C-alpha cells in the first residue's frame, strides 16, 4: 500500500515535470518569435541584421570596457566626438569642427539639434560629464587612455575646450575610441548609473532594446538619428563562443554575418553558393619579443637575426592561418600614424644564413637554448616557430600558458628569452607600439636600450607637428628592423563569413557599424 502511494507520487511528479518543461518552452517561444532572429530573418531580410560574435559585451558602460567586441556593438548606441571612417581618417561625429588653441588646449564645436534616445538634448554639459568621468575615475578600465585630460571647459552650450596635462598629439585618437562614447549627463544624474546600465541611452543610430547576457544584444532603429534614418529596423548581436556552432549558424541561415571564422572552416563556407568569406587586416601583429638582458642568449644581435631568418613567415600564414595574414617587418601597419610602408608586406627568410649566424655567435648545434612563452590561443603558430628554430640548430623549450597565467607573467615581466604575443593598437598611432621600447618601460621586460631610439620616441611623444612626428616614428622603425627587439611574424586578418543577403566590408578596427552594412537587393 505504502509503495503504491509513492509510485503515485512519483508519477504525479513526472507529470509536473513534463508540464513544466512544456510551459517553459511555450512562454519563451512567443518571445523568440517576436524577436524573429532565426526563422523570421528570411522574410524580413531587409529589416533585421543578425551578427554572431565569439564574445559578449561586458556592459553598456563605454568607460568600463576593454574589449574590441564590446566596442563593436557599442558604437551603434553611443557616438564619439570624432569618428574614424573605414580608412581610419578622422571625420566629424558629435563635433563638427575642432582646432588646436595651444599646446594643451583643443576647442570643439558641437553639433546642434542632436538628442539622446530619451529625448534630452545633447550639449556641452554631456561632453564635460563624460570625459571628466573617464579621466578621473581610476577604477574604470578606459581610464589609462584618458587620464591626461585635466579639464573639459564649457565655453557655451555647443563649444567645449579640452585641456590636457601636457602636449598630447594623440588627443584626437583618444576621442575617437571606446571610452569617449558620449553619455547623457542629465539622465544619469536623475536616474543613477545602475538605471543607465539597465536602460542605456546614447545618441547613436540604434537604441537599446534588450540584452540577455551571453546570448544576445538587441538594438532598434533610432528614428531621430542626426545623420539620417538608419538602415535596419533591428540589429541583433548574438554571442556564440563555440566556433563550429557559429559556422553552423551561418550555414543554416540563422545569422547574416559570423565573426572569427577558424581557418579550418574557410573552405567549407566558400563551398556554399550563398555564403562568402570576407577578410580584412586587423590591428594585431603576432610577434616574438626578446629579452636583451645581459647574459641572455637573445642579447646577441646575431642570434636575434638568426631567429628572424630561420622563420618562414609566409609559410606560417599559409599553413596555420589559412592564408589570413600579411607578413610584415614592422608592427605599425598601414592605417596607423607613423607607418613605414617599405617594411610592410615583406619578410626575411634564409635558413642557411641563419645557421651561419648562429655559428658566428659561437653556438654549436643545440647549444643555444631558449624558452618561448606563449598563451594557449597562439599555441599552433608557436609550435611551428619552435620547429623552424630547431631546424637551424636552436634548442627550444615551448612554454604554453593558459591565457590568464600568460597575462600575469606578462604584467610581472617575468618571461625568459622570448615571448610570443599578438599586440593590437586601439589608438592607431605608432606610440602605442613603441612606448614599450622606451627605457623605463623596457626595463625588466626586453631591457632594450638604444639612446637614439629613446631620443626619437621621447620627442614624438609630445611633438605636436604631425609631419616631423611621423618622420620620427619611421626612423625608429628602420632602426628596430635592424636591432630586432622583436621579430614580427604577420599582421592578422579578421575572417568573417557572410550570407549573400548582406553586403559587408570588414573594417580594420573590427567594428560593426550596422549602417555600413547594407541589405543586398
Amino acid at each position, binding site marked *: 500500500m505504502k*509503495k503504491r502511494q*509513492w*509510485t503515485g507520487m*512519483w508519477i504525479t511528479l*513526472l507529470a509536473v515535470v513534463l508540464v*513544466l*518543461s*512544456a510551459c*517553459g*518552452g511555450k512562454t*519563451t*517561444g*512567443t*518571445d*523568440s*518569435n517576436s*524577436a524573429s*532572429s*532565426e526563422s523570421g530573418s528570411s522574410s524580413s531580410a531587409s529589416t533585421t541584421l543578425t551578427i554572431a560574435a565569439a*564574445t559578449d559585451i*561586458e*556592459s553598456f*558602460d563605454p568607460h568600463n570596457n*576593454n574589449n574590441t567586441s564590446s566596442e563593436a556593438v557599442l558604437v551603434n548606441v553611443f557616438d564619439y566626438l570624432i569618428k574614424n571612417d573605414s580608412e581610419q581618417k578622422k571625420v566629424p561625429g558629435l563635433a563638427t569642427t575642432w582646432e588646436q588653441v595651444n599646446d594643451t588646449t583643443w576647442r570643439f564645436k558641437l553639433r546642434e539639434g542632436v538628442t539622446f534616445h530619451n529625448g534630452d538634448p545633447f550639449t556641452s554639459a554631456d561632453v564635460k560629464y563624460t570625459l571628466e568621468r573617464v579621466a578621473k575615475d*581610476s*577604477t574604470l*578600465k*578606459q581610464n*589609462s*587612455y584618458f587620464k591626461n585630460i585635466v579639464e573639459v571647459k564649457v565655453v557655451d552650450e555647443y563649444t567645449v575646450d579640452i585641456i590636457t596635462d601636457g602636449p598630447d598629439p594623440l588627443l584626437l585618437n583618444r576621442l575617437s575610441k571606446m571610452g569617449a562614447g558620449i553619455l547623457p549627463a542629465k539622465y544619469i544624474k536623475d536616474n543613477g548609473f545602475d538605471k543607465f546600465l539597465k536602460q542605456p541611452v546614447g545618441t547613436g543610430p540604434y537604441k537599446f532594446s534588450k540584452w*540577455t*547576457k*551571453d*546570448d*544576445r544584444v538587441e538594438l532598434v532603429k533610432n528614428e531621430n538619428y542626426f545623420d539620417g534614418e538608419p538602415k535596419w529596423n533591428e540589429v541583433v548581436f*548574438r*554571442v*556564440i*563562443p*563555440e566556433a*563550429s*556552432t557559429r559556422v*553552423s*549558424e551561418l*550555414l*543554416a*541561415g*540563422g545569422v547574416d554575418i559570423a565573426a572569427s571564422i577558424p581557418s579550418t572552416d574557410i573552405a567549407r563556407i566558400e563551398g556554399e553558393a550563398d555564403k562568402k568569406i570576407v577578410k580584412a587586416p586587423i590591428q594585431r601583429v603576432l610577434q616574438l619579443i626578446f629579452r636583451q638582458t645581459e647574459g641572455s642568449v637573445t642579447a646577441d644581435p646575431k642570434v636575434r637575426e638568426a631567429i628572424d631568418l630561420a622563420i618562414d613567415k609566409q609559410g606560417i600564414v599559409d599553413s596555420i592561418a589559412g592564408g589570413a595574414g600579411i607578413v610584415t617587418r614592422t608592427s605599425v601597419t598601414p592605417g596607423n600614424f607613423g607607418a613605414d610602408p617599405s617594411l610592410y608586406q615583406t619578410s626575411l627568410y634564409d635558413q642557411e644564413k641563419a645557421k651561419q649566424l648562429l655559428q658566428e655567435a659561437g653556438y654549436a648545434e643545440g647549444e643555444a637554448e631558449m624558452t618561448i612563452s606563449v598563451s594557449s590561443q597562439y599555441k599552433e603558430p608557436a609550435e611551428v616557430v619552435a620547429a623552424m628554430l630547431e631546424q637551424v640548430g636552436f634548442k627550444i623549450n615551448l612554454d604554453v600558458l*593558459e591565457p*590568464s*597565467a600568460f*597575462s*600575469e607573467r*606578462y*604584467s*610581472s615581466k617575468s618571461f625568459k628569452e622570448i615571448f610570443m604575443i599578438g599586440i*593590437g593598437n586601439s589608438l592607431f598611432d605608432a606610440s*602605442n607600439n613603441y*612606448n614599450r621600447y622606451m627605457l623605463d*618601460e623596457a626595463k625588466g621586460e626586453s631591457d632594450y636600450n638604444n639612446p637614439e631610439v629613446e631620443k626619437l620616441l621621447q620627442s614624438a611623444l609630445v611633438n605636436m607637428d604631425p609631419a616631423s612626428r611621423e618622420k620620427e616614428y619611421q626612423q625608429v622603425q628602420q632602426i628596430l628592423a635592424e636591432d630586432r627587439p622583436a621579430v614580427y611574424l604577420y599582421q592578422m586578418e579578421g575572417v568573417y563569413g557572410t550570407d549573400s543577403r548582406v553586403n559587408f566590408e570588414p573594417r580594420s578596427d573590427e567594428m560593426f557599424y550596422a549602417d555600413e552594412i547594407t541589405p543586398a537587393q
Partner: protein
Amino acid sequence: MGKYVLKSLLQVIPVLFIVSLIVFILVRVTGDPVALMLPETATAEDRAVLTQALGLDQPLYTQYMKFLGSALQGDFGQSFRYGEPALQLVLERLPASFELAVAAMFFAIVMAVPLGVASAVKRNTFTDLIISGISVIGKAMPNFWMGIMLILLFSVMWGVLPVSGRGGVSHLILPAFTLGVGLAAQMTRLIRSSMLEILSQDYIRTARSKGLGRMVVIGKHAFRNGLIPVVTIMSLQFTSLIGGTLITETVFSWPGLGQLLVVAVNTHDMAIVQAAVFVIAFIVVVTNILTDVAYRLLDPRIKYD
C-alpha cells in the same frame, strides 16, 4: 526522521565551507585578474591602483575572511566583467540551466522507459541485444561531438531545428537530447535489470497463472514496482545535469550557468567562479539530502539514525 533531516542539514555547513575555501584558493593561485582587465598599455602604476581598489593587495587570509563574511550575508562580490553582484548573475542563469536539465530528464525518461521495459521483457533476444548496443554507444558518445553532429544534421543539412541560443521549444530539442542521451542509456540498463528482477518474482508468476494478459502483467504489476529504484537514481542524476551542462551549453550557446562559468573561468572573473561553484555545490548537497530522505521513506527497512 526530523532529527535525521536536521543532522543532514548541519553536515551541509562544513561541506560548503570546504568548497568555498578550495575554490577561493584555486581561483587566486591561477592568475592575476588585474592583468586581464587593463589594456596592454597600462603602466605599473595603473595596475597598483586597480589592485588596491579590488582589495587584491591584502594577504590571502584577510581576503578570505572578508569573502566569507560577505558570502554569509549572500554577497559574493562584484563580477569584474559585468560589474554586477556575482550571486545575482548566477541566480539569473539558473532558470535556463534548469529548463535544459528538466527537458533532458524528460528526453531520458521518454527514451529509457520503453527501451528498458522492452529489453527486459524480450530478454536475451535480438531486440535486447540491439537496445543494449545502443545504450552502450549512447553512454560512450562525448556530448561535445554529439552536439556538433546533431547541429550538422538537423540544422545545417535539413534545416528543421535552430542551431543555437535559447528561445522556443524548438531551441530546446537538440541540447536537451544531447544532454539526455547519456542519462537515458544509463536508465535503460537500470530499468532492464530492475524489471528483470521483478519479472522473476512470485507475484508476477501468480498474476500470470491467474490468466491475466501479458500487457496487464507487465504494465500494471511489474512496471510500477520496477520504477522505484529508477526514480531514486533519477533524482540523483538531476543534480549532475544541473552541474554538468557546461559542455552542452557551450556547444549550443545556451545562456545558462554552465556557459557563465566557462566564460568566467576564461576571463578570470573570480567572483562569478566562486558564486557559481558555491551555488552548484549547494544544489547538489541539498538534492542529495532530499533524495536520501525520499529513499528512506520508500524503503522502510532503512533506519534513520
